[in-house]
């Protein structure tokens, strides 16, 4: 059995003044992609922010281990350099920073920048200010583009599909598939991911390992994310959460 790349045990997190995560567990092995579902405001983005080390998110109890070592107390940029990458739910636009310039800082290969920009239909955005005036879908594509160039081992995707039209979901999914090496058989993949989504459409294009449901700052998981999604559609988040049992880890008996 492969070792855990990410291991979160009994995590309690405050965002602002509020306790959001209340004893959450999740473990991700090398090559696995996990999907998290959950109603608005349950703490999905907070979880991803805690893994990345974003400001205003405070771990009060528990631990986050990456390759077996605690991430607590390590700054955002160092976590990124250790191999964690994030696609933000709401990326900011920044005045005066040209997208191309940022990409060149992330990755010096002009050829790679060009290839990915074209694949994500952002070729004409490179000379614009970062996210400035980008459409909802373009902002999401831009996040994936940056992740591609950053080349992380653990990819955290916070709603990569929200605001993306049904045709561009295919474009983005194709890029995510390549990023997560989903064209390789499951045991051969190296890169891991946590993907947050409200829409099921993207799951039709991706080949994920396991799905979780988050309620009240805790996670429960089941075998197949598409299955969970159709259950949620039928009986809602809370009932679906009730009938899941395993706690945080990909059920080993399933496959």
């Amino acid at each position, binding site marked *: 059995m492969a070792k855990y790349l990410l291991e979160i045990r009994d995590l309690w997190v405050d965002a602002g003044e509020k306790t959001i995560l209340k004893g959450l567990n999740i473990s991700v092995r090398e090559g696995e992609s996990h999907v998290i579902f959950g109603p608005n405001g349950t703490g999905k983005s907070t979880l991803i922010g805690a893994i*990345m080390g*974003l*400001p*205003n998110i405070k771990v009060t109890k528990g631990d986050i281990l990456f390759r077996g070592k605690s991430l607590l107390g390590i*700054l*955002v*940029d160092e976590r*990124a*350099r250790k191999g964690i*990458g*994030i696609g*933000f739910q709401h*990326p*900011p636009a*920044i*005045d*005066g*920073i040209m997208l191309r310039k*940022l990409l060149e*800082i*992330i990755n010096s290969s002009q050829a790679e920048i060009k290839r990915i920009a074209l694949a994500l239909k952002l070729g004409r955005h490179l000379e614009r*200010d970062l996210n400035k005036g980008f459409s909802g879908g373009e902002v999401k594509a831009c996040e994936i583009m*940056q992740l591609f160039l*950053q080349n992380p081992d653990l990819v955290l995707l916070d709603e990569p599909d929200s605001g993306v039209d049904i045709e561009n979901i295919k474009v983005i999914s194709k890029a995510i598939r390549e990023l997560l090496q989903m064209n390789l058989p499951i045991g051969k993949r190296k890169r891991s991911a946590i993907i947050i989504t409200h829409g099921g459409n993207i799951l039709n294009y991706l080949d994920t390992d396991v799905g979780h449901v988050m309620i009240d700052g805790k996670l429960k998981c089941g075998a197949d994310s598409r299955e969970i999604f159709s259950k949620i559609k039928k009986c809602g988040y809370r009932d679906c959460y009730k009938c899941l049992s395993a706690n945080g880890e990909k059920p080993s008996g399933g496959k």
Partner: protein
Amino acid sequence: MVKSPAEGNDMDGKLNLVGYDSPKTQSSGSFLVVDDGIAEMQSYSDKLEILPLAKSLEKEQWLKEHLGPVPKKVLGFFVRALPDAKIEKPLQACFFMKEKKAQVIHNVFVAEKNSQVHLISGCTDDLVEGKHTGISLFFVRENASVSVTRIHHWSPDASVFSKSSVFVGKNAVFDSNYIVINSPKKEQAHSIARVDDGGAVGFNSIIFSRENSDFTISDKILLEGKNARAEIISRAISDGGRILTKTYMAGKGKDTRGHLECDGILLNEKGSIHAIPELEAVNPKTNLSHEAGIGRISETELSYLMARGIDEAKAKSLIVKGFLDAKINRIPPNLQKAIDELVGKISIQA
């Protein structure tokens, strides 16, 4: 006072920082004052007259009323671009305080009808507690166009007072870029422009104020003639210093238009930025507007960049550089070096 090698006694290096370059082949003329004497004065264009002001005052009696009382051995230049002259290379001027603790400069710059001319003017010092006073007059005659780039780079304990008066003639253009890389203990920089029919003025300034520095910049533009236009863009960065930006525009003539924008970033808790934008419409057919925004570096923007593996210092300098680049997109290439220098300092200190 102990000096780091970068701030050493290397005069050429100092002059270089404020845009005074050698070789001079890149310029149309040069004018260098060291302490209380003219060290270099040369015109490389037959369309450009450069004289010591003291000498030209006898001939140019009309200047008396503008200048007011001046010392007998008045120090500074009298520059005139002849009618129709199109002078592409900039005139470079520099005022350097090396040993004497006080320097008083009077400069007069005349761009005659239909001429086009650029000036780069630097001020810097290499001493303790210097006092610099600079009084400048610009006459931009009908249909002429002048751009002025001023770069200041002071020791921390210097005090500086400057005043520029600009007369912009019919259909003439005056553009000023003012950048302060190292702010002194105290600086007051006043500019006032009067604009005639169809004339246009742009005042851009970038002030970087370090700890224990008290900086006041005051820009006034009077749109007197019909169709006169103006724009003031001020960017203030406080790295512990106090900055007061006073900007004022008055629409007196018919169909005048003006816009002013002052933005500021506070890099830490020690400093402050106080922006006072003022508009006054005297003529009902004037159109004036302003925007102002002051804040810290956005934590969201900072952590976004850091999440890509960029360290905090570099991320901050990217944001500040973006803040400067965003609007002042007419930055002349010679200013770019000064801006890079400024941004470089931020990344060291972050």
